[in-house]
């Protein structure tokens, strides 16, 4: 099929899909309406369990089992990337050369690194209270480490980031989530049930199992992002094709 015929086919199909989508949009409840039965019930359940951040309550309490599935997708994707981006037989590792970094960049990166790392950990730790949580904070903490690559060079980054340890951390965090769920199963008869005392509203220890699951997710996401970026950076910086290929 030539590109031209294909483009016409896409446009025809797209026009049909657009018509159906517009018809569906016109039948949706009006934007900004006041009727949100599920939302109201979620807010009510979250307040009853003394979790200030309703979204964390939905993710780690009311829909904790779905988050287990989401975490498994993340884990599987990281595993797939590690398999796809491994060193093949016709490739070899070259030691990365030290690079010159402009002094303002170096100073700024090294100054911001600890701040960004603490911000990431803060966002994870306060997941049940303020906007944020394990997913968001994990990404911030993991990317903070990579400021070292900008500020110094790849060898310095590799020294603070043993990839093997993060791979183990990823697996440990994923199992910590499952173990917390199993503990609830033994304690109360339901997998991932929120069985711990709910604590005082709007304090760090409130929400029962929400902070625990949130911390497990934070560790999992941080480790996963570090491992992922390490594999992609290896491809860009270290792995070279053998000559004569």
């Amino acid at each position: 099929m030539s590109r031209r015929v294909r483009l016409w086919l896409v446009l025809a199909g797209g026009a049909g899909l657009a018509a159906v989508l517009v018809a569906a949009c016109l039948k949706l409840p009006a934007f900004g309406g006041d009727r949100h039965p599920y939302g109201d019930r979620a807010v009510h359940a979250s307040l009853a369990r003394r979790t200030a951040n309703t979204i964390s309550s939905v993710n780690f309490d009311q829909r904790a089992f779905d988050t287990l599935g989401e975490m498994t997708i993340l884990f599987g994707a990281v595993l797939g990337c590690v398999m796809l981006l491994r060193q093949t037989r016709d490739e070899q590792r070259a030691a990365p050369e030290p690079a010159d970094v402009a002094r303002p960049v170096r100073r700024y990166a090294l100054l911001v690194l600890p701040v960004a790392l603490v911000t990431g950990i803060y966002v994870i730790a306060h997941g049940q209270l303020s906007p944020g949580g394990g997913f968001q904070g994990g990404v911030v903490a993991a990317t903070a480490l990579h400021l070292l690559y900008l500020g110094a060079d790849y060898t310095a980054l590799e020294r603070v980031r043993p990839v093997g340890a993060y791979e183990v951390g990823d697996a440990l965090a994923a199992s910590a989530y499952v173990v917390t769920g199993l503990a609830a199963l033994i304690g109360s008869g339901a997998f991932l049930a929120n069985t711990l005392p709910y604590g005082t509203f709007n304090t760090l220890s409130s929400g029962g199992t929400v902070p625990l699951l949130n911390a497990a997710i934070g560790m999992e996401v941080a480790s996963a992002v570090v491992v992922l970026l390490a594999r992609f950076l290896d491809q860009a910086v270290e792995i070279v094709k053998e000559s004569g290929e």
Partner: protein
Amino acid sequence: MHVLPYLVAAWVFLAGCYGLATSRNLVHAVGCLSVCQAGTYVLLLGVGYRDGATAPVFSDIKPGSRPVVDPVVQALTLTDVVVGATVTALLLALVMQIAKRHGTVDPDELSELRG
């Protein structure tokens, strides 16, 4: 005006689909898939919006003092973003393998099977 956010979501989704279908570069195609997903974020957040409402976080507002937007769709959007990011990473890894094995990232030139 009551359907505009939904129409924006549909428009973003269709723009991503058009890019996917006409893409000449697999990295560009992965980007277009992200655009398609961005349409679903707009749709989810649009469905959950409530006039004059604030974020469903009660660390600094008194419960019941103000209306809040639907937290269920916000949690779904978070799931959406996470899955989107992991799928993008996996697809980019696949593109790297294709570039290494076939020496091209143009989907039109990838017609033959190679072991």
